[in-house]
């Protein structure tokens, strides 16, 4: 008699803990052949609110850490991803049915992307900040600061590379993130949560929700504790709905609207302009010898 495999219960990752949805709901995930291959937690609006509460607390500590320290923690994420790369390859392939070679390449790109952002933590301020030569006896400088709590709305593909790209850009600069995983293939997001839990990332800094995308994003733009949104939108209607929602509270929005961008393009997705939408420029004046 063949051995009965032990299947994993896929949970939400909130405040460094693995939780079922408070709603008690779960969703069946089917593969390309229509077979149910996992049950995932089906996050509710209340789960989003809980995640936001923890993200607010986590962000304060994360932003207060030194940039050098944040860089090392992010590099640690890459180390653990590397050691679990076969699991990530399987998570991508199980549902998408992609080739082992393509999935392996995506995992490698994802790990390299995390390393890239780990290096940005202590450089973005130097690249985007400067002293200003004002016409008076003042020392005046402009420095970028993290916007706060950022909700990431990940695209369906590439399920891992796009997710880590959108998560790491705000996180490297001191923001906290709540990531809403693809509802077509949430398995890489679940695996990423398990990697984060063993990577020294402080609780609440990165939170991952699975469930139905449309249900969750309906509440993102109006939530007052969420300061920014980074979304790969499916269509212009989704983009407009998000922009209309944030018009009421003026939270920051970065939308990726191209249907199939090249997520491996470092210039587009790993440069300073992928981080800048989640930064606020603060200008500080102080008299100098006056």
């Amino acid at each position, binding site marked *: 008699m063949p051995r009965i495999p032990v299947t994993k219960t896929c949970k939400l990752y909130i405040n460094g803990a693995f939780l079922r949805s408070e709603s008690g709901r779960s969703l069946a995930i089917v593969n390309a052949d229509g077979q149910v291959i996992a049950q995932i937690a089906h996050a509710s609006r209340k789960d989003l609110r809980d995640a936001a509460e923890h993200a607010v607390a986590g962000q304060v500590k994360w932003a207060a850490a030194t940039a050098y320290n944040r860089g090392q923690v992010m590099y640690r994420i890459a180390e653990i991803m590397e050691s679990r790369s076969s699991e990530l390859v399987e998570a991508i392939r199980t549902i998408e049915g992609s080739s082992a070679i393509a999935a392996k390449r995506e995992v490698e790109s994802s790990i390299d992307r995390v390393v890239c952002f780990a290096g940005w933590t202590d450089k973005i301020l130097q*690249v985007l900040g*400067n002293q*200003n*030569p*004002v*016409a*008076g006896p*003042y020392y*005046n400088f*402009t420095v970028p*600061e993290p916007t706060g709590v950022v909700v990431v709305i990940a695209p369906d593909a590439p399920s891992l590379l796009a997710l880590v790209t959108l998560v790491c850009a705000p996180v490297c600069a001191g923001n906290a993130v709540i990531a809403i995983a693809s509802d077509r293939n949430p398995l890489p997001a679940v695996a990423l949560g398990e990697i984060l839990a063993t990577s020294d990332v402080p609780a609440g800094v990165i939170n991952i929700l699975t469930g139905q995308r449309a249900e969750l994003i309906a509440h993102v733009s109006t939530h007052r504790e969420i*300061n920014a949104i980074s979304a790969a939108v499916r269509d*212009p209607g989704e*983009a*407009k709905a998000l*922009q*209309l929602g*944030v*018009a*009421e*509270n*003026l939270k*920051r929005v970065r939308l990726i609207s191209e249907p199939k961008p090249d997520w491996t393009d470092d*210039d587009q997705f790993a*440069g*300073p*302009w992928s981080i800048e939408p989640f930064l*606020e*420029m*603060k*200008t*500080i*004046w*102080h*008299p100098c010898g006056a």
Partner: protein
Amino acid sequence: MSTAPPAQSSRASGHSDGQPWIYAPAPETVPVHIRPEYDLFIGGAFVPSKGGKRFATLNPSTEEPLSHIVEATASDVDRAVAAARKAFKSWSATKPTERAKYLFRIARRIQDKARELAVLETMDGGKPIKESRDVDVPLAAQHFFYHAGWCDKLKYAAPHLPDGDAPRPLGVCGQIIPWNFPLLMAAWKLAPALACGNTCVLKPAETTSLTALALAEILLEVDLPSGVVNIVTGGPNVGRALVEHGDVNKIAFTGSTEVGKKIAAACAGTAKRLTLELGGKSPNIIFGDAAIDQAIEGIVNGIWFNQGHVCCAGSRLLVEESVLGEVIEKLRHRMRMLRVGDPLDKNTDVGAINSAAQLATINRYIDLGVHEGARRETIESAPLPAKGYWCRPTFFTDVQPSHTIAREEIFGPVLAVMSFRTPEEALQRANNTPYGLSAGVWTDKGSKVFDIARRLRAGVVWCNTFNKFDAASPFGGYRESGFGREGGRHGLLAYLQH
């Protein structure tokens, strides 16, 4: 709490009875040419509106009409956008070193006509002549001069912009500006947009259009190519037509948070780029170890500069409990020395409120402050002119953070004074607002200055100073105070593809 008379600077000195010296009138007398009527400035010429009615623009210190300007129609806005679109092709292709020369020329002409522009600004808006002369007009010139030099250096302005060797402008910019710094706001908006190769349709505020129209005359004098800048006057409907226009690539708005949100909604789902510089309720924090006399000057400048018609006004004063009595006493004395009255008098500190509507708003907030239980202090004795819109400088003590006057932007010379015990409490109170435009911190302890400055959630933090502005210094807010920066290297990004 000290009972000795506070230290007095020569500027603040007065008679021993606590009243200011009586000064002889010292009116600014430079003549200023105001046309009886102004048309719209479209395609490089003053042109009549198509169907728009005229309305009077008043001197708020006399309530007398200064001139009659046009309420532009949607078809006028259409013409202005079309002129800007037509000009965009050649302006964006103009050699950057040549584009720069026009901006340098504009800066120089503003300097040439500085006195006249200052008088016009004061007559049209009500602000004291010493402010329009020493702040508004010089800064407007500096904005054009500063940005002129960027024209041929844009490729060095930021790392890895698209088309890095020749960063691209956005196109036609619709720019809507407020009535508190009319000429200066026009310069803040136009100079960076033009330097980056954009063309503009500017809408001044309906009560203060005259210096923008005087700027149009300067644009003619310097031979700025037709259509590069177009100016449409009028009220909210003109702004709406500009925001909703299908051929505008970028909207830049300075004004209230309420209107900013409407503009954000109108731009949703369009390809328009947007920057918003909105309201504030900025905290000004005085620690016990501050140089108190300097801090008092900072408080005065923070809330009574420009009658408090300042989006970044330090309208919430947070004072460490140990020095609260001393600060209030010195502030009371200093407030009594303020001269309210004829804005054209060179000794005037506080001029006229910009409009009857704004005066009504301010008075409503003052009444609310009293009604909700705060204690009002003002200069009861100061005589005010018989005509015009006036509001005496005012501060409130016994203010709770929940009071309306501690939460909402008043946009007038009204200060809410509160106290705190620890730096943590000061920060918690300072950041407890949906706004985040500016903040002030006063302490002589260096490490504390930088710790508090780092933790204040605001786009501009003034340490041991307040309300300082410069063309090279980025300005703009966090949260509901808007997004995008104006001025400095960072301000260029609002007008370039990136």
